[in-house]
């Protein structure tokens, strides 16, 4: 049985935050939810974590003690130390303190937080706080781990520590769903769901999304006219929806950009 959600609709007043969105979160895999500000990522993750009820649609999730959730607000208590945050979390999940501490110690070590154990969470750097949030969410060995933009604005060194934690959770058999604005991160994930204004823009493995891109990509050194051109790698790329062969082999960033342009052109 795979965790996930089917055909979710969520409305905030007249705004449709999620418009018939489905996602699968298989055990032992990392699933990425990608999109910009306002795409619906957080709403979908809140539904998966059980923090919000959809208007229609179903969520498949384990019992709530088997769900780890890191909200985008980092999910740690700024007035508690690193150790106190983790102890508090362990108590909330009714874990034995010594066993939880032992489990946390390895994560803290790998994430480079051991030295910071006695510091207040509010005094940690943004990246350290995010790592603490992920460790806290992983502590009860959840079957489903839901992480809302754990790496946004985090520097590359902390990002690498975070990705170690994420990979470790998946290697332990957990189903991980994470929201990100970075497509190079999405490319590391087993499957990807791209959201735009509450709708699914693309979904599948990275390779499937690339293969599903209609047309082909042409290159140009000068800005071509029209909405189908964008800047990438110091040059221009142009999407020709009818071409069969192009100058570039598209990657995930290209495929997602094309999907966004196709939507823009249609509307």
């Amino acid at each position, binding site marked *: 049985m795979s965790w996930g959600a089917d055909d979710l609709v969520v409305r905030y007043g007249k705004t449709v935050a999620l418009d018939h969105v489905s996602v699968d979160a298989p055990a*032992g895999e*990392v699933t990425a939810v*990608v*999109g*910009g*500000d*306002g*795409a619906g990522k957080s709403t979908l993750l809140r539904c998966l974590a059980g923090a919000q009820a959809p208007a229609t649609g179903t969520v498949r999730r384990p019992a709530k003690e088997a769900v780890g959730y890191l909200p985008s607000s980092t999910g740690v208590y700024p007035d508690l130390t690193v150790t106190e945050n983790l102890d508090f979390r362990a108590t909330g999940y009714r874990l034995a303190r010594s066993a939880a501490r032992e489990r946390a110690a390895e994560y803290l070590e790998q994430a480079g937080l051991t030295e910071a154990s006695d510091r207040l969470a509010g005094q940690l*750097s*943004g*990246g350290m706080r995010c790592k603490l949030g992920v460790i806290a969410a992983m502590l009860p060995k959840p079957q489903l781990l839901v992480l809302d*933009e754990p790496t*946004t*604005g*985090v*520097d*590359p*060194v*902390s*990002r*690498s520590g975070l*990705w*170690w934690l*994420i*990979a*470790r959770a*998946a*290697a332990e*058999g957990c189903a991980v769903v994470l929201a990100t*604005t*970075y*497509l*190079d991160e999405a*490319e*590391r*994930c*087993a499957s990807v769901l791209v959201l*735009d204004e509450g709708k699914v823009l693309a979904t599948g*493995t*990275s390779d499937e999304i690339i293969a599903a891109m209609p047309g082909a990509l042409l290159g140009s050194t000068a*800005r071509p006219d029209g909405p189908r051109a*964008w*800047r*990438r*790698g*110091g040059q221009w790329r142009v999407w020709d929806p009818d071409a069969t062969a192009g100058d570039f082999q598209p990657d995930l*960033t290209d495929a*997602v*950009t094309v999907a*966004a*342009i196709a939507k*823009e052109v249609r509307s």
Partner: protein
Amino acid sequence: MSPLARLTGVTKKFGEFTAVKDVDLNVEPGEIVGLLGANGAGKTTVIKMLLGLIGTTAGTVELFGQPPSRQTRRRLGYVPQSLGLYDDLTTMENLEFSAAAFGGKPGVKDTAIPDAIKQYGKDLIGALPLGVQRRVAFAQALEHEPDLLILDEPTSGVDPLGRARLWETIAGAAQAGAGVLVTTHYMEEASECSRLVIMAGGAVVAAGTAQEIIGTSQAVVVLAQSWADAFGRLEDAGLPVSLAGRGVRVPGARSEDVQRALGDLPAVVQDVPATLEERFFELVQGS
């Protein structure tokens, strides 16, 4: 022609702490220089010295051939990470305020207002989506046609198409002759820059194009039936393993060592060139 910005042997200490150590950095007209580094690497301190907000402990900072001052600030456009807009003013009021502060003619040049933000002219900034706010911040920084543009994490939290559009604006300014200094955490964006400068621990640890910086650095890609098993074995062997789709990558390792760590686990092991991000870690850890 002299560079727009020149740091020569710049050191900055805060008490006992050395935030910036003997840094040389130039920005020439028409080029986009990417300043990369982890938190605490010294990027923000470098920007503050360029803006003239703080002085140096040693070395010299020159903007347009002179020390930073209010006069040099006039020729400079700056987009801070926090965007630097007033939430309680409308889009137009923000633009007018900034134009007035830069001492231009009254009002905002119509050509300085991109079509994408025109419809939001009378809306309060605080009520607009972050993507629109970001475009306003760019318009504000570009209105007085600066010779040097300084951007601190300009695309954090932006979707890929939005990011491409922002880079179009940045490249447009460079093409018109402005120099650009941009910090980013996002290595993918390094390819938009003419040149990169990587800082770690306050010092410059590498400079050049992405290709020059990566050089001959390599990584090993492992594709196994179960990536989790491969991950576990490589990790037990103390190798710096990371997730990559349905496989794993081991930056900076030799394929023999990876093969040995995998033991009898069936897997395809392949040497590939390192990514800029992987090379970045080598540099940062080596410093």
